[in-house]
C-alpha cells in the first residue's frame, strides 16, 4: 500500500466532502499541455488524479476517450514518456495529490511489470487501474506492484455477482472502483437505479474507500452518489471539456462537481 491514496480520502472526509477522482488523458493535446490539464484538475478540487495512458485498442472506452487516445498517440504519447515528462512535473506541482495511472494491461506488459512498478513509484505514482485485467489474471502483477508500493485498484461491475463483489472489495488496494453502468466510459444522462444499493454492498465489505465511476458528469449525480460512495470518478466529461475549451474549462467542471460532493 502506498498510503497516499488513503490520506487523500481522509483529507476529503475531514473537510466533509466526497473525494473527486478526476481523469484526463496524458498527451492530449500534447504531453506538456496535458500537464497543465492535470494541474488544473487539482486546482479545481480533484483529490486524486487519474493519468490516462493511451492504448491503440481501448475496448473499455467510449468515443470521447477513444478520441483522446488517438490524439495522444498522434502526439507521441507512450508510457515511458508519460512517466518521464508528465508524471514528475504534475507531482512537483501537486505533491499532495496521488497520481494513478489508467491504461490497458498490454501497455504495462510491454514495459515489463516490474520495471513499470519501480519507475512509476520513483516518479510519484501511487496506483494503477487496468480495466482489462480482472482478478483472475492479476495475481502475479499485483504482487509485483505491492512490492514496489503501487496500488492495483480493482474494479467492480454491475454484472459482478454479490459474493464476487465482496471478495474483490475485501482484497482491494487503494480504493474500489465501482463501474456504475454496464458499458464503456462516457457520459450518461441517467445512472441505473440499483447503483446506490450496489455501492452500499461493496462499501460494507471493503476496508478501503469505494468510488463510483463511468457516466458521471454533473454535480447532481455526484451529490446523489456521495451518500453511498466515498467519491466519484469523472472522466469523459473532463476530457471533453479540456479538449473543447482547455484546462480552465476542466478546472471549472471539477469545481462544479466538487460542490456536489460537499456533504
Amino acid at each position, binding site marked *: 500500500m502506498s498510503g497516499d491514496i488513503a490520506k487523500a480520502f481522509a483529507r476529503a472526509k475531514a473537510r466533509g466532502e466526497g473525494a473527486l477522482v478526476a481523469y484526463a488523458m496524458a498527451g492530449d493535446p500534447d504531453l506538456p499541455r496535458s500537464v497543465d490539464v492535470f494541474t488544473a484538475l487539482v486546482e479545481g478540487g480533484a483529490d486524486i488524479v487519474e493519468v490516462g495512458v493511451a*492504448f*491503440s*485498442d*481501448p*475496448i*473499455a*472506452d*467510449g468515443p470521447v476517450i*477513444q478520441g483522446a487516445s*488517438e490524439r495522444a*498517440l498522434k502526439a507521441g504519447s*507512450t*508510457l*515511458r514518456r508519460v512517466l518521464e515528462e508528465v508524471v514528475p512535473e504534475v507531482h512537483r506541482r501537486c505533491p499532495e495529490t496521488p497520481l494513478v495511472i489508467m491504461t*490497458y*494491461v*498490454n*501497455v*504495462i*506488459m*510491454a*514495459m515489463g511489470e516490474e520495471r513499470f512498478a519501480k519507475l512509476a513509484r520513483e516518479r510519484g505514482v501511487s496506483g494503477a487501474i487496468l*480495466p*482489462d*485485467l*480482472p482478478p*483472475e*489474471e492479476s495475481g502475479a502483477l499485483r504482487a509485483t506492484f505491492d512490492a514496489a508500493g503501487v496500488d492495483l485498484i*480493482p*474494479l*467492480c*461491475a*454491475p*454484472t*459482478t*455477482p454479490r459474493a*464476487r463483489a465482496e471478495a*474483490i472489495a475485501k482484497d482491494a488496494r487503494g480504493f474500489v472502483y465501482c*463501474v456504475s*453502468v*454496464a*458499458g*464503456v466510459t462516457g457520459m450518461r444522462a441517467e445512472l441505473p437505479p440499483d447503483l446506490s444499493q450496489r455501492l452500499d454492498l461493496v462499501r460494507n465489505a471493503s476496508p478501503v474507500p469505494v468510488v463510483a465511476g463511468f457516466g458521471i458528469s454533473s454535480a447532481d449525480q455526484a451529490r446523489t452518489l456521495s451518500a453511498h460512495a466515498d467519491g466519484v470518478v469523472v472522466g469523459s466529461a473532463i476530457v471533453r471539456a479540456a479538449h473543447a475549451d482547455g484546462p480552465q474549462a476542466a478546472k471549472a467542471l471539477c469545481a462544479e462537481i466538487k460542490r456536489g460532493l460537499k456533504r
Partner: protein
Amino acid sequence: MNTETAAGRFGRFGGRYVPETLVPALMELEEAYAAARADPTFDAEVARVLREFVGRPTTLTPARRLTESWGGAHVWLKREDLAHTGAHKINNTVGQVLLAKRMGKQRIIAETGAGQHGVATATACALFGLPCEVYMGALDVERQALNVFRMRALGAVVRPVESGSRTLKDAMNEAMRTWVSQVSDTHYVIGSAAGPHPYPTVVRDFQAIIGKELRTQAQAAFGKLPDAIVACVGGGSNAIGVLHPFIGDASVRLIGVEAGGHGLDSGQHGASLTLGSEGVLHGSRSLVLQDGDGQIQEAHSISAGLDYPGVGPELAHLAKTGRMEVRTATDDEALAAFYEVARMEGILPALETSHAFARGKELARELGVGKYLVINCSGRGDKDVATISARGVPPAVGVKA
C-alpha cells in the same frame, strides 16, 4: 490430445483479459458450454444441423492436376468451400447460436473481417430466428461488398466501424464494447479461435469437425493419415479446426500459413506467429504485432480474413512449442495461387485459402512422391472477385484466337 494446460490456458497463452463487466458473462458461457457438451442431445442437434443444413461432411477431393504439376506428394483438398455459405465459418456459428438459444439469449452480435463469419452468423440467426448485428471495419465493408449484401439479405444489420485501421481488429473492439453494454441478453459470436476464454476452446471444438472428418476420410481415401496438413491462419479457426485432431499424431506435420502481405520486411503483413511478440489483444494473451510501447500495429493483407495483428492462443502455443510449422505467403503469391488453383482444379479459392495453396508446391516437393498432403480449402473466392478482378485477369490458355 489436449494442449489446454489449464482451463483456458495454452502454455503461456490464453486467459481472460476483459473488463470486469464481461467476466461473469464469460463464466456463464463457460458453464453453459460445459453443460451443453455433457448433454448428448446438444451434440446430436449440432450434428443434425451440420448434416441437413450445412451439407457436412464436406468432401475430400484429390487435386490430380496440382499433384502432377507440383511433382511431389499426392495433394488432397478438404473442401470447406462446399459448406453452406462457402466457408468453414458456419461450423462455429451453428454451434454458438444453438448454444446462445440454449442460454436463453435474445440477440446475437458478431464481428467480421472478410464477411464470411458475418454471413455465417447471419445465416445461423435466420435459421434459428434470432436478431443479428454484425460489426465490420469500414474498409472491409468496401472490399467485401458481396458479403455485406448477403448479410443484409439474411436480415442482419451491418455496422461499419470507422475507428483505427477500419478492419477486423477494430470491428472486434467495437463488438466487445457493444457486448459490454448489452451483455445480459446478448451473445457475442466470436468468429475465430481467439478472444477471451472460453472462446478459443469453444470455437476450436466446433471447428474440429473438419479434422475429425478428415481422419476418417483420409483412411478411406488413401488408407492412412495425411503426412502433412496445411491451413491458412488469420485468427486461426480453420487451422485449429483441421489440425487439432492430429496434434497427438507425431507422423503428421502441421503447417500454418500466415499473411506475408507486401513482404515480411515491409512492415505490412499479418504474420503474428512469425514476427509477433507476446501481448494481450482482444481478451487473450497471445502473439501480437505491436511496437515497443505495446501499441498494436495495423496488419496488412490482400485478404480481409487474414488482415489481423493477433492470432488465437492455442496456435501461438503450437507454434512456440514447434508442433506447428509456420510459413507465410505474400499478397502476390496468394493471387498467383488463386489462378493456379482455379485453372488446374476448377475451384476459385478464397484469398485467405489461397495463402495455404501458395505454399503447397514447396510442401508437396519437400514431402516427396508417395506422401500425402492435405490442404484445407477453407472457403470459396466469390466474395473476392472485386479485389482480384481489379488487378486484371491473366489471359486464357489453349483457346484459339
